[in-house]
């Protein structure tokens, strides 16, 4: 027993040494779900431009710098979803990693399963993938290596936007923003927390409430840094320049309403 504890401590210590971790269990296997009374909360991401126009791929929009652009690929990770009850108890989704791909509607609706009965007043999540999962080797499911993973410089592309703009000074007027970097001062994960205490969402076993959020594409190009496609048409590496886009998308997602 003592030896087991020692071994566990050593393993934990080694893990800590090799990689700074935020939190979270590095074991990539999802825990078997215990049977709980409860139901599903749907979290619906509706993509917009300036919070009002419906966003569609390959359609023309104007950014805050008045450059026109079309988006062909928009993908980003949402992770570690936690909902909080009106009594302040929380429910954290297990193995909570979702890849939102705007070309696939189903991926824009997160189904948070087995949420215990009760009245919920807030939701929080991260845009991006926590440091731990960037440092724990080969992952599975939504985190399996894909075009959202850098193989030559380990780490997830947390946010990817590609498209074209006539203002872009690049091959074929391309826009390419691959935003990543899991640790240090230039990390690009951003946390969101939305409070809806005035209209709590009720999980009762028979109702499946849905939380509607809006993801505003132009927020990526607006503040604090206004992006000018003539000079900023690509960002594909980690560092202070990637952080500019992360600071911009830190307010990309807005709360709309709850349907009970």
């Amino acid at each position: 027993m003592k030896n087991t504890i020692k071994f566990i401590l050593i393993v934990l210590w080694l893990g800590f040494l090799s990689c700074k971790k935020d939190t979270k269990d590095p074991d990539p296997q999802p825990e078997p779900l215990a049977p709980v009374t409860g139901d599903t909360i749907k979290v619906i991401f509706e993509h917009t431009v300036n919070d009002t126009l419906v966003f569609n791929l390959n359609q023309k929009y104007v950014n805050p710098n008045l450059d026109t652009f079309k988006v062909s690929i928009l993908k980003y990770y949402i992770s570690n979803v936690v909902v909080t009850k009106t009594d302040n108890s929380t429910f954290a989704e297990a193995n909570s990693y979702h890849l939102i791909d705007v070309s696939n509607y189903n991926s824009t609706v997160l189904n948070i399963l087995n949420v215990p009965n009760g009245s919920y007043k807030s939701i929080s999540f991260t845009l991006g993938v926590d440091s731990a999962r960037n440092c724990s080797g080969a992952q599975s499911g939504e985190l399996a290596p894909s075009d959202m993973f850098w193989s030559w410089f380990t780490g997830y592309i947390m946010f990817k936007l590609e498209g074209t703009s006539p203002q872009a000074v690049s091959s074929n007027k391309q826009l390419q923003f691959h935003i990543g970097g899991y640790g240090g001062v230039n990390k690009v994960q951003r946390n969101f927390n939305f409070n809806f205490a005035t209209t709590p969402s009720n999980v009762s076993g028979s109702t499946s409430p849905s939380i509607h959020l809006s993801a505003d594409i132009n927020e990526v190009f607006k503040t604090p840094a206004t992006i000018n496609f003539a000079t900023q048409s690509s960002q594909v590496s980690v560092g202070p320049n990637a952080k500019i886009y992360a600071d911009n998308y830190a307010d990309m997602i807005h709360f709309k309403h709850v349907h009970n």
Partner: protein
Amino acid sequence: MNKIAIIVLLFGVVIFGACKVDPKIIEPLPANNLVEIIPEGWPQPKYTYSVNTISEDKFVLGRALFYETMLSVTDSISCGSCHQDFSAFSHSGHKVSHGIYDRLGKRNAPGIFNLTWHPYFMHDGGINHIELQPLGPISNTLEMGADINPVMTKLQASSKYQGMFKKAFGTDTITSQNMLRAITVFMGLMYSYNSKFDYYKRHENNIDLTASELNGYNLFTAKCSGCHTEPLFSDFAFRNNGLSVDPFYQDSGRAHITGMPQDRYKFKTPSLRNVAKTAPYMHDGRFNTLNECLDHYTNGITNLINLDPLIPNSGLQLSAQEKLDIIAFLNTLTDYKYLGDRRFANPNF
């Protein structure tokens, strides 16, 4: 007639004797010895098989994948193409890796051994985990040039791999995670800790170093071990060892990953275990012999920026005899037991 027979026999004995390696150094391996090893006096490895537990089925699958050309886009290049068992899994005689369509890579393929102690991988340390390392060469357009998903589709369509994954992981649904974990079981068990020098250090098998080897060891300890630290013969730090910059590759090394000017031209210190078998040398394979390497350290140092503080501008002071002694010592780091370990050889031959 008898005379001729005796001469032939004697001749055979002489040839056989010449080829036979000292039996004290090579021992037969147990048939299946697939366990984690921490040699005496070594630190704890960075990677342990606590989640990805070791099994013979995973090892056999990992070996098949290591030598599997389907991992490249053209079905022509495997990991084993540039990592050959007889040269400590380096690419013997090749300055840089050879990839699909005869493309040349930009860096020298290093040997593979004791990987579970490495805190990061590749010459620039860009990959942070042993399980993810294979994705580098698989996706590099100058090496295997493949996207991971089409590779998984090819493996999934193979009844051979369906069966092997089923045996190793209990499911014939083939995932990249299981593929990478199997390769990690195979590569991570390539331990090398039984060189002549190791036996000498451990006082095993009555192995002694010659006067030249011992002098080389003392010189090495004084002049080289600041970076090539025992027992792994690397400190795994990133250092600029005074190489001039190849105008074709313009390889900035670690700075390619960090973007920091202070990391320009720094590369991960390579282990010197089995170094006599891993020519050519340096990150771009520019030196063919150990002698050229020592000549570099004595009178070839270029101080662009970031020259490592452990290397004087004027180079190390070594006489011709001292170089010979150091090379004699480096030769004692060859682990014939690991080099001859058939468990790691290509199962297709």
